[in-house]
């Protein structure tokens, strides 16, 4: 509401900038409250909503209020200043309706998932929320499990993927899973096996487009030089990484290297004309489509790497 803002009569309930907290309606005073007062009022209102439980979550446990005011803001400096994420082809993501975002996975810790979420939330014209499909392990871990649900993720299973897609949500999946995120540095930007093609059959059944996404830069944030297999088995984790800084520097090793990122959203691969559920029952079609998506991401990765001048700039 730019014209309202210029007159100074009406202050929008929620500011356009997602970084801001909600600002209050006009008080019955001559002088409108200053910016910091509005921010303070918004912050206090948020605290009140949390204390009284006065907020809404969806069936999957997605807590929009918490995500936008608490979980996303601390990621923004990382996105803008540390990784200087550059997005390409955001217009390939539809403004409305379901679509399946398929991306390469890397970086030891799923920072690439967070950055892709932020790219779509802050920089897509329709401010889309990405609903990620996460591994089983995520929902077993205390603290991690509820935060994952509240930020809009759900378990990577066909039932959930199809339910989200058919309710016109934007669903994100990293089909490489732990094989991709935990691979050694020497194999960087080489796509691993793409699961069993479950994501393709979900897209086929719902007739939603698949958007291949290539992420460059995440491989270099925590280069995995070795993997402590014994410790991983002991802790029940898929891997325990040894990076140049971890565990050598202890907690300081958790600081990611400031690589320069590019996230490219590729052209959508339409699935609506392929025949719905019948097509999903055709394993050859599913395999071919999986391969097509994988090849697209792989070749885009190579193109982006050729264009990149340096890892850090």
């Amino acid at each position, binding site marked *: 509401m730019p014209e309202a803002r210029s007159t100074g009569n009406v202050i929008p309930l929620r500011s356009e900038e997602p970084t801001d907290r909600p600002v209050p309606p006009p008080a019955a005073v001559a002088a409108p409250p200053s910016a910091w007062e509005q921010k303070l*009022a918004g912050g*206090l209102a948020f605290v009140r909503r949390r204390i009284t439980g006065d907020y809404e979550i969806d069936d999957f446990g997605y807590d929009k209020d918490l995500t936008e005011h608490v979980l996303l803001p601390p990621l923004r400096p990382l996105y803008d200043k540390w990784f200087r994420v550059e997005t390409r082809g955001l217009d390939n993501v539809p403004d409305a309706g379901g679509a399946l975002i398929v991306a390469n996975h890397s970086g030891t810790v799923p920072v690439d998932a967070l950055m892709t979420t932020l790219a779509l939330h802050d920089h897509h014209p329709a401010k889309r929320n990405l609903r990620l499909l996460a591994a089983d392990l995520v929902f077993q871990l205390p603290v991690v499990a509820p935060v994952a649900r509240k930020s809009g993720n759900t378990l990577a299973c066909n039932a959930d993927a199809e339910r989200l897609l058919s309710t016109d949500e934007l669903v994100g999946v990293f089909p490489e899973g732990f094989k991709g995120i935990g691979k050694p540095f020497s194999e960087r930007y080489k796509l691993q096996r793409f699961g069993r093609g479950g994501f393709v059959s979900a897209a086929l059944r719902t007739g939603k487009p698949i958007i291949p996404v290539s992420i460059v830069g995440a491989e270099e944030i925590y280069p995995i030089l070795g993997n402590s297999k014994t410790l991983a088995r002991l802790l029940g984790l898929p891997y325990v990484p040894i990076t140049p800084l971890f565990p050598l520097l202890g907690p300081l090793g958790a600081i990611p290297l400031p690589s320069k990122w590019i996230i490219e959203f590729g052209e959508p691969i339409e699935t609506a004309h392929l025949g719905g559920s019948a097509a999903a029952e055709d394993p050859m079609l599913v395999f071919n489509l999986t391969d097509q998506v994988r090849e697209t991401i792989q070749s885009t990765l190579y193109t982006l790497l050729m264009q990149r001048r340096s890892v850090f700039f």
Partner: protein
Amino acid sequence: MKPRVVLVTGVSRYLGTRLAATLAADPSIERVIGVDTVPPRAEALPQLGRTEFVRADIRNPLIAKVIAQAEVDTVVHMNVIATPLGAGGRTAMKEINVIGTMQLLAACQKAPSMRKLVVKSTTAVYGSSSRDPALFTEDAEPKALPKSGYAKDAVEVEGYVRGFGRRRPDVTLSLLRFTNFIGPVIETPLTRYLSLPVVPTVLGFDPRIQLCHEDDGIEVLRRCALGDHPGIFNVGGTGVLLLSQAIRRVGRPSFPVPAPMVSLVAGAFRRAGLVDFSPEQMRYLEHGRVADVSRLQRELGWGPRPTAQAMQTFVERAPRILNPETVAAAETRLLQALTRTKEPVRA
């Protein structure tokens, strides 16, 4: 097809009494017969109206005589008990639930007058685990079958009910899987849990919960007893609440207990007689459980009110320790103190 003679098992417990009273108020039904091991509470008697009460144990073959003599055509089985304390121990509870159902079904199978069977089951049959889909549909395979308690009984009861359905295909069979009940009156382990002055939770977990308002639950049972709605249906409100959110709405502080300590704390609560939480309910406190209720809504063209609204009726019943008004007033005062304005600046 409208029923002529309806038999309701578990009539002396809250929901059984409510349903029998509702059916008795319907003049199109000739007779309503209630069965239970204990007589209904005295204060429930006027409400029950013309309901005939038979003091019988459904574990006893006597039940077959009742069904045959009265020519019962509709049976509403509500006698699967959730809490061992109410039944007099876990062994007795299991016997009432499983053996009782077997006896009842055996009697129903023999009765030529039988036309309809409505069974009150629970969504607990889906179990509760980290690998669950976000919403269970009626044909979802549970990831981890319940190993103990009420949920295991319910799984076994459902097995016998399905067997009955195969042997008597002429009987309309409605299997209703209810989510947790809540409302202004009903007493369940969940309502007792949410009424604790400080509510213990599992540290690092915040399950999604789904609730069914007691009135809506009765309405679903009534519609299934009167009409023909064959099949398995999840029954509950749409939408979910997080457990933390539910606790905040009832205005109570929560107390997170580390997972290894949970069974210890639960044991202490059980011995103190505060809340009777079984192991599978402890898992529910970690992972929660939500069912897809769209099939019932399609079948009936109506569905129970949303979870948040059902919760609200419970919130209004319990005196809140922390009122939203108090919080809002504190917010206003704090804001006025900080901004030094006389006028309220409210978001």
